[in-house]
């Protein structure tokens, strides 16, 4: 690459396309699956992207378990990745989870990636936790350019 050369997006493996930095808690959720984070991205046809969530959850009651999903577009959209998280203690503490999936765009489009949470064990009010000094992240990077 030459100095002064213009750089177009979606060209480099590892290139960050969009980032959501979540610095405040989500609304609480219990046994209904709830959207806790969303990121909308312009994608290009035939480019493969990495979609990654690196964040944390907490609950008001110890020993709850939370199922965390990465979905495409909406609550009823395709599930891209899922994981479960045990919350052993309370006090608003953030317990981390990372979810990652690949997405290949069929056409040039605008796509939303969402993170959802649902309590699958226990009785507490659960939430995604975010703070300025302990943020949660949802971001998209290029894996394979066209």
């Amino acid at each position, binding site marked *: 690459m030459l100095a002064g050369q213009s750089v177009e997006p979606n060209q*480099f493996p*590892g290139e960050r396309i969009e980032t959501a930095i979540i610095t405040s808690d989500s609304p609480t959720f219990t046994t209904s699956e709830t959207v806790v984070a969303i990121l909308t991205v312009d994608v290009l046809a035939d480019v493969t992207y990495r979609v990654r969530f690196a964040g944390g959850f907490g609950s008001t009651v110890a020993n709850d378990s939370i199922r965390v999903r990465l979905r495409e577009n909406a609550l009823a959209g395709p599930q891209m990745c899922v994981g479960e998280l*045990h919350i052993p*203690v309370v006090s608003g503490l*953030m*317990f*981390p989870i990372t979810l990652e999936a690949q997405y290949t765009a069929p056409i040039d489009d605008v796509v939303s990636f969402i993170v959802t949470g649902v309590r699958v064990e226990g009785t507490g009010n659960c939430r995604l936790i975010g703070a300025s*000094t302990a943020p949660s992240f949802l971001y998209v990077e290029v894996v394979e350019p066209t």
Partner: protein
Amino acid sequence: MTVIGEKVQQWLIPGQRIATSTAYVNSPGFSSDAVIHSVRAFLLENHVCRVTADIAFSRFGGNPRRVQAFLHYAHAVDDLDAQIQRVNVYVYNGTSIGLSTILEGEYKAERNGEHLFVVVGRPDVGNTDTVMIANSTQPSTMSVDFIRYEEP
């Protein structure tokens, strides 16, 4: 601010790995805040990087316990500055195999030059035998990747 004679490196490619630090030996046991891992990276002003720590904790005896892990920018290992991330880990088993966790955060450099990032471990009060686990087959890694440039 760049000064005459200063070596400036340009990170041209988003996603480019700038620095990696891999630990192959356990940290000393700790019972209060302790720096347990670190990485140094040469950064450019207004460049945003991803700082990641992929580490594991264990305990040698005692009851299951909670460990907090903090990711900091630091002037030196004994002079911590901005907190970038904080997570909690609950260590159930007291074995030589650690319970792994990932700390991930972003940091925007305010100057050109070498930057130090550290992980601080903080066990529950009274626990004296908590360690960061690292060996040749289970290393604990810290890394710094360039993400993007932000206009000042």
